[in-house]
């Protein structure tokens, strides 16, 4: 039995210091199963332990241990898979974790609910907010052209008219003012409103253009260049108005085609 095994290979006993625990096989069936497992294990481990522990392999492992210890690798954080403490200890840790995750989940859900409430609230006062940007010209490089525009109400909420828009419309207007239908397009309606009546458009526009030209002369040529480079529509031909946004250009084109009909 156990004794006989270890008797066969005395060197093995160092690897199996507990081999004699086997003792005489118990007579009952559980004992026989246990003995079967023990024999199987002994057979399987015998090969593993033949010749005892390989000293070289042991030295390599110990050297690796030393290196890790001396480089501070042993201060590494314990991952979940490294925690093999008995279940009670782990249970306490897990329940703390569970509590935390429930707390986090409630915070997250609460945040979502709060955000939903907030978005509904903001939708309500949209109208109040949207008119605000029209009173300023956010991208205007110079304050000068802004002044006449700033007081002008926008007919289209959500699309703040800039002085550049106005200039572009004015320049396009000069070219197509004789073609009646063009003036019905939304952009022209806006221009007319800004000027305070259809008959005032010409005067309003010349004022705007003069202001813009004056501002540009006082500065470098940069706005002119970029304006020319940028412009693709007819409204851009006359120079510094070329930076007008694509909506104005589109309006100009549609207005023109409308006039052709």
């Amino acid at each position, binding site marked *: 039995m156990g004794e006989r095994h270890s008797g066969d290979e005395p060197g093995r006993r160092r690897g199996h210091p507990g081999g004699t625990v086997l003792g005489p096989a118990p007579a009952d*069936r559980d004992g026989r199963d246990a003995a079967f497992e023990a024999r199987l*294990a002994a057979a399987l481990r015998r090969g*593993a332990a033949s010749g005892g522990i390989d000293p070289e392999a042991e030295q390599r492992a110990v050297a690796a241990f030393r290196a890790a210890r001396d480089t501070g690798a*042993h201060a590494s954080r314990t991952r979940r898979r*490294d925690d093999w403490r008995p279940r009670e200890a782990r249970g306490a840790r897990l329940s703390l974790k569970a509590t935390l995750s429930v707390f986090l989940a409630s915070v997250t859900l609460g945040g979502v609910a709060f955000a939903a409430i907030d978005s509904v609230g903001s939708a309500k006062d949209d109208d109040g907010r949207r008119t605000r940007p029209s009173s300023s010209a956010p991208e205007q490089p110079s304050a000068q052209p802004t002044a006449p525009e700033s007081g002008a109400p926008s007919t289209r909420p959500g699309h703040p008219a800039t002085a550049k828009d106005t200039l572009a419309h004015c320049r396009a207007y000069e070219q197509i003012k004789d073609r009646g239908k063009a003036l019905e397009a939304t952009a022209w309606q806006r221009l007319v409103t800004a000027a305070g009546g259809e008959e005032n458009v010409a005067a309003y526009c010349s004022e705007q253009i003069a202001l813009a030209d004056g501002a540009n002369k006082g500065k470098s040529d940069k706005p002119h260049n970029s304006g020319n480079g940028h412009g693709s529509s007819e409204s851009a031909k006359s120079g510094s108005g070329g930076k007008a946004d694509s909506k104005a250009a589109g309006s100009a084109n549609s207005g023109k085609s409308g006039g052709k009909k």
Partner: protein
Amino acid sequence: MGQGGEPRRLQAQDGELGAAVARAQDGDENAFAVAYRIVQPSLLGYLRGLVGEDAEDVASDAWLEIARDLGRFRGDGAGFRGWSATIARHRALDHLRRQRVRPRAAALEQDVLELPGPHSTHDQALESLSTGRALELVRSLPRDQAEAVLLRVVVGLDGPSVARVLGKRPGAVRTAAYRGLKWLARQLGVRDAADSGVTDDGPRTLGESK
């Protein structure tokens, strides 16, 4: 616990192993060597069942990782067995992936069925069981059964620990170990044990080990 002699014997060592691991975690390299000598035979036995002759190389790789990550480990001696077996298993699976070697030998039915002989009493059959034959038998099991048997019998882990190493449910692991052991007992010609012991009482015995 209703476990076999080997696990019980290994558990008897767990106190010593746990103390050695704790000292090693404090930086004692001699204690680390003690832990190595306690664990290495069972790790090698397990790895032989998984990767055959490459077990020593895989074990070396595993020990490098164990030595490096020892500071991360938390637990006692039994826990250290499970932790190190998990590392060894990952190295073995990496090895198998690299080698594209099937973990179980394909063509050993004939050899395996060369049974010890007609004098098949329980003890005699096992007495004459060579390591090579035992390994062949275990490796001819489906891998889940082979691993469950090896981790339980050779490494000496309890049911939940085996399940954790294998990443499976304890019930599935218990069933796999039971089937594997029953099949092994039959192959080894322990007809008496297979009929009256392992077959009849197997489920109860194994059930107790969870």
